[in-house]
């Protein structure tokens, strides 16, 4: 099946998926906290729009609800919460130094290739037209994971975590036209609780180590065996 044979709306779905991937890279390379949060918000919006498009194309009405949920949660509520936290912790102008930015991004590109390879057997099945997005969503998931590994800033790690969720949602929407509503609500609830918990943790961490740099969370090592 070729992209050219699909209707324009479905082509737009692919473009949006690609934009979500781009947002992942933006998150990965972005060193300014506020800009990172914006990138994350954009990714949420792109994923929500994609969901709405999938709902329109497939006439699946419960997906509109998921799209709305994603939009309000991932692109409005959570970024807003993070913004507020960043303001309250006085870190708006914080710029994180990444050790080897070019290498980090190149490794990210490597992850995209890897996810393509992993998803290849799935794409060989000639099933849904949007199945090709599985590889993209896996890339978004892995890039989120990579961001959590490569970045040392707590807020950046949280953004990585949340963008992994975006990738998962994208996978669900693209490959299976969304999960059953119960599951989606459950996942959304978990994400929300996680976001609140993250906020709580920011305060605890900044209280206990007076910074939000994960490298300073090093009290628990094997050799010292804790307190």
């Amino acid at each position, binding site marked *: 099946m070729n992209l050219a044979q699909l209707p324009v709306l479905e082509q737009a779905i692919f473009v949006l998926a690609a934009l979500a991937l781009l947002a992942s890279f933006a998150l990965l390379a972005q060193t300014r906290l506020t800009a990172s949060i914006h990138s994350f918000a954009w990714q949420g919006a792109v994923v929500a729009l994609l969901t709405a498009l999938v709902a329109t194309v497939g006439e699946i009405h419960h997906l509109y609800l998921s799209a709305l949920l994603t939009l309000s949660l991932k692109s409005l509520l959570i970024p807003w919460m993070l913004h507020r936290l960043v303001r309250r912790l006085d870190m708006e102008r914080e710029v994180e130094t990444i050790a080897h930015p070019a290498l980090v991004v190149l490794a990210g590109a490597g992850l995209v290739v890897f996810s393509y390879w992993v998803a290849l057997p799935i794409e060989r099945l000639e099933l849904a037209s949007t199945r090709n997005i599985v590889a993209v969503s896996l890339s978004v998931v892995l890039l989120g994971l990579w961001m959590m590994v490569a970045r040392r800033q707590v807020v950046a790690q949280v953004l990585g975590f949340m963008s992994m969720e975006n990738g998962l949602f994208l996978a669900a929407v693209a490959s299976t036209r969304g999960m*059953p509503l119960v599951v989606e609500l459950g996942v959304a609830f978990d994400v929300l609780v996680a976001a609140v918990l993250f906020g709580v943790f920011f305060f605890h961490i900044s209280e206990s180590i007076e910074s939000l740099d994960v490298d300073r969370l090093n009290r628990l090592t094997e050799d010292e065996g804790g307190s």
Partner: protein
Amino acid sequence: MSAASFTPLAVTVFTPLVGALLLAVIPTLGLAGWVNLGLTLLEFAAALLMAADVARHGGIIAHSFHIDAFNVYLVVLTAFVGLTTAIFSRPYMAEVCEQGRITRRRMQLYHSMFQGFQFTMLLALTTDNLGVLWVAVEGATLATVLLVSLYRTPESVEAAWKYFILCGVGIALALFGSVLVYFAAQQVLLDPEQGLSWSVLYSHARELDPAVMRIAFVFLLVGYGTKVGLVPMHFWLPDAHSEGPTPVSAVLSGLLLNVALYAVVRFKMLTDGALAGSASPDTAGHLMMAFGLVSFGIAVLSLQRQRDIKRMFSYSSIEHMGLMTFAFGMGGALATFAALLHMLVHSLTKSAIFVTVGHASHIAGTQSIEHIRGLIRTQPAVGWGLLLGVAAIAGFPPFGIFTSEFLVLSATMQSWPWLTLLLLAGLVIAFAGLFRNLHPMVYGAAPEGQVAVRANMVPVVIHLLMVLWLGLSIPLFLSRWLDEVTRLISGGGLL
């Protein structure tokens, strides 16, 4: 579909939910402890009732719940360990509160989250929906993150953060795997809404696409494996166990790891079905064996260099979970039976050990192995409890773990003879590491001024007696039961 009644199941699962909400608003500390105890008692009673019902009438598949021999035994185990931990936790946490390590509000949070944790685990065990299973396991993470960071020391915050991040990542991969399973199901099932129902999927397992299921299983194994504590995603486990309150360590080690392993085994059953006709039908099993064996080995070696008593035992948990994963992966009736038995005895023993360790660290005022000395002189009950518990976990003969480890070894001998040597060496090394540290803690000279604490050894005694009983002779009803589970998982019975 079945004659077994739904009510006990509902009571078992939803009591803790009600309890969590109730305990969040009870301000009185003493009362909350008792209410917590009462709730767990109710859960256990309902679980027993349900088990009896299921034993008589067969499983329940209704209202998106699925009960068969496999999970009913884990539900009873979970409710039981929850009960004994609640018995232990009431005076223990009261003492912690008196020491001023924790505020009243956080005690409220503790009790509420204890029940919340119980709820998520019971829900994960009983649900038929694989998506709900995921949500429940993630919920368990969120509940325990709050419990681990309860003391709010920098160390506990750090441990909770690592736990949160690592398990969050793992569980996200598991969700990706679940999405893939759902994707595979949609190609087979007519009603997409049923695509996450385990029982429906299991009946169609052979039709699922093997390529997709193979990829899905890798993600699921890595994802839920993070929760099981499999190497290399195990880093959270020692931290979370050592920094959380002791009752939390007990339920984490005794229950949460089991629930995660349960999820892995459920997915293995599906994957095995899907791969049955393909070129490599044992991929899932081999993966589990590899992960299990590596975890076992790494944990045994890491255990040697621990200085914190709770960290040492959490590595022992990784070791045993690795062994179980290995045994489940090996498949076959004998190995599966052994793994199931091991799950049971390990939960009982490990929670007993953590309870004892909690008392021991109260006596010594620290968790550092170097400073815990002369327990038997100061408080014989705690000292002997620790000694016997460690003897049991190390696999000394009269205890149940000896039986299950012996079965695992014989199963290995049958199918992978060379690995037996590795396992034996690992068990011996673990044994040496545990006893090298245990000896001075139990027998050494007690430091000046070390006094006994108010200890509640009832749960320890009950657990160790049960483990001893299981080691001497497995009661007939239990062996039948485990055999039925074995038949369910591996296709062939032992008896």
